[in-house]
């Protein structure tokens, strides 16, 4: 019931917030309120319960609960950071709709329906890519985003339709292999993996950084979870090795991990750095999809959630830096950490949440997935190469301790300044009567708003720090993430070793 309530809240508030976008305050209020209520409802979602609605089974699980709880929390904090920095009117509504779509995709057992749910939810993200005001450039980016999203969905729908858990066993292995590559390729398109990364590069031109984490991390996360479930229900039970297909997927993943990190390290624009870092880290999930083994189920799902949350924190950090110093070029940000230690701590949190420390789930998951997808020497090589992903963090940290640049020196005050509220207005109002009292309260409110506006930069930095804290805690596998991710693996529809009459399965490896 709580799952249905979550969908009701998320879709209702999200759509309402998008529909009243001309009334900016109302839209923001509905969106933020919806995110708070969605978070509260998501915490009440139970484990291992199933509801049947019109013959369709919606299964609740611990993982769905964690996904929706942290998704709502990341959305709430991101929206607050957007309020403090640069507001994007579609962000809260789109976030809610994307979460609803992902929640439905996680809850549905039927692969085509789950794919459709993940796609429809993600369509709301297209609005965010338009940017704050619709321009022809923004429209071009939105069209690319729509094309990538629906093309991936079509591949997924076709693959899931052809090789469902019932029919896959009776099909020619070549057709099943094609369906396997198509569905995982669809996930690669959604994650912007190389060579499908062109729309990502354009998306970073117009999409606000906080929207990037939604469009490129949270929205594809649900889709990847659907692909993983389909692989475990339909493809893995066949016992086919699919060596060529898997090699192709691993190649795409490895290329994306390395080249995406290199691009993020070399790029001068902060928002493109976020985009490429999301692309690079998202490809690790592709490694999990290349493994047709139940052992990859838990680590891949753990990675999806930690990756999305860590990248949200990184995007929020970039938004805060951009607002504080008015610059988004890496070359203009010399000395940012010396001016704003809070943001320095935030970047440290982002690094820990994304890369991890020994013993943390996020690092162990990365190693585990590389080990499962590749033989030992190649896995070690890939892990060594993926150290490049530290490159952009190190670069940002190094420039942070240089002598402050002109932009950084002239940027917003990153320290909290509390101006004393004027009591005079209230005192006068008491003497002068009720009418003036109202005015005095209005003045107090205006005063508080002035203080808040004057401290937008430190407030944003504090929010980023809070988000990084949440991401670090989750990356350490708190809240039973690993157990929740490993549970609820879909059962194959047909027993292993079942061979129908006329089927032409090749011998198992």
């Amino acid at each position, binding site marked *: 019931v709580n799952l249905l309530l979550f969908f009701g809240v998320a879709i209702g508030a999200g759509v309402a917030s998008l529909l009243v976008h001309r009334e900016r305050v109302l839209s923001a209020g509905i969106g933020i309120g919806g995110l708070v209520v969605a978070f509260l409802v998501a915490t009440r979602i139970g484990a291992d319960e199933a509801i049947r609605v019109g013959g369709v089974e919606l299964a609740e699980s611990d993982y769905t609960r964690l996904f929706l709880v942290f998704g709502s929390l990341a959305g709430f904090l991101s929206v607050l950071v957007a309020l403090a920095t640069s507001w994007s009117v579609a962000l809260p509504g789109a976030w809610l709709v994307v979460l609803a779509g992902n929640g439905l995709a996680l809850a549905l057992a*039927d692969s085509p329906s789950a794919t459709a749910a993940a796609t429809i939810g993600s369509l709301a993200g297209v609005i965010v890519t338009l940017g704050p005001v619709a321009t022809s450039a923004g429209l071009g980016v939105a069209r690319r985003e729509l094309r990538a999203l629906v093309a991936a969905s079509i591949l997924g729908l076709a693959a899931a339709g052809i090789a469902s858990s019932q029919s896959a066993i009776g099909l020619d292995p070549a057709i099943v292999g094609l369906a396997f590559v198509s569905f995982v390729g669809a996930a690669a398109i959604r994650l912007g993996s190389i060579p499908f990364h062109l729309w990502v590069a354009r998306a970073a031109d117009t999409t606000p950084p906080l929207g990037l984490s939604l469009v490129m991390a949270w929205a594809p996360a649900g889709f990847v979870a659907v692909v993983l479930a389909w692989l475990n229900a339909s493809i893995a039970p066949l016992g086919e090795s699919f060596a060529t297909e898997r090699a192709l997927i691993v190649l795409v993943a490895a290329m994306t991990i390395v080249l995406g990190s290199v691009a993020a390290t070399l790029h001068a624009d902060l928002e493109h750095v976020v985009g490429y870092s999301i692309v690079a880290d998202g490809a690790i999930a592709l490694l999990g999809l290349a493994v047709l083994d139940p052992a990859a189920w838990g680590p891949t799902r753990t990675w999806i959630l930690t990756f999305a949350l860590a990248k949200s924190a990184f995007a929020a950090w970039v938004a805060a830096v951009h607002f504080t110093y008015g610059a988004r070029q890496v070359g203009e940000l010399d000395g940012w950490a010396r001016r704003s230690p809070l943001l320095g701590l935030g970047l440290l949190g982002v690094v820990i949440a994304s890369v991890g420390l020994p013993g943390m789930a996020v690092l162990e998951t990365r190693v585990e997935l590389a080990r499962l997808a590749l033989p030992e020497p190649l896995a070690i090589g890939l892990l060594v190469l993926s150290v490049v992903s530290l490159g952009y963090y190190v670069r940002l940290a190094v420039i942070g301790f240089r002598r402050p640049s002109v932009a950084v020196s002239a940027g917003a005050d990153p320290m909290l300044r509390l101006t004393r509220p004027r009591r005079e207005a209230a005192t006068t109002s008491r003497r002068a009567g009720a009418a003036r009292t109202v005015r005095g309260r209005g003045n107090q409110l205006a005063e508080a708003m002035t203080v808040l506006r004057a401290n937008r930069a430190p407030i944003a930095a504090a929010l980023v720090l809070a988000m990084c804290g949440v991401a670090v805690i989750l990356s350490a596998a708190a809240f039973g993430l690993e157990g929740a991710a490993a549970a609820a693996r879909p059962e194959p529809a047909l027993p292993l070793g079942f061979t129908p009459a006329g089927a032409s399965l090749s011998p198992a490896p």
Partner: protein
Amino acid sequence: MNPALAALAVGVVAGGVVAVSARDARTSVVGLAVALVFAPLVAEPFPGGLILTARIVASLLSVYLLWIVARDGFDIRQARLRWPVEALIATAAGLAGLSSAALTAAPVTEIAAVGVPEARATAFAIGALAIIPILEGRDALRLGTGLILAVLAASLIQQGMGSPVAPVAHLAFAAVIVGVAASSAALGALASLVADRADRPVRAGAHPLAHVVGGGGASAQGGARPASVDAALRRLSDARLADRLSGVRTRSRSAIERARAARIGERTVTSVRRRFETAGGQAAGAERDVADAEPQAALTEPPITEDRDAETMEAASGAPEAPEEQEPPAATPWPTTVTARSAGARRSLRRRE
């Protein structure tokens, strides 16, 4: 092969061909409607009544969403391939689909899965038709048409596999089609808005008088208010000719000649004359005032009817009252336009303040 199913399949493919090759947005939407409505019927057994209703309602809703954008004269990009080429491509792909026995699942359960070759052929044909609009679609409507056709192809493949498609899968396809149509329509509407904001040439479906009302004087588009009915008709004729020629660019010389020889109908002439008569002095006065207030701005501003024009003129002249004082009666077309533009400008100025 079932002849009824084959006929339905041909209908779906024909609709697809029209949708991707039509030179007018409205025709394209009609073709898409045919394909969407008949596609769920290319199945054996037929889907249940409720599911079929849901699919058809979803199809009509999707088409209506696209129609909202198309009916306002959306500038659809011309298809690179004409309908005979598209039809040939669809036929070839359909034949390939018809012979794709590998996509037939072996009988695993009691429900023997023998497949529906008509559905597979339709899926291949529609899928082939969708490729070019998806890859090339530079406008939202073409892209949306291609994407919807591709989703349709995915659903037809599932119908062609032989095992009955689950009701929930039908609903999933319907939902994706509606979602894609809504997104495409929204992007198309925004594209029209953005294009109108920028300097945009006269397009079909928009009355040329609407374009010249906002100019307030001569402009790059020749945006001076026409002094007479004849001038307005000349401009209307030029605009329509330009539009027709852009539509027949790749056709034969005779088609171009026919476009040049086309005359404006009597009804249009009457309408223009009536607009001139009813608009009268107040509208002309308002226009003159705006033009007198800032002749320089009027010279540089595009003649498109947008709030921005009035805003810019008011901001530049520092005399926003000029159009406000000329509150004309709401019944006449020109004064209404002037009032709306002034009110819009006032709203945005107030919002800025």
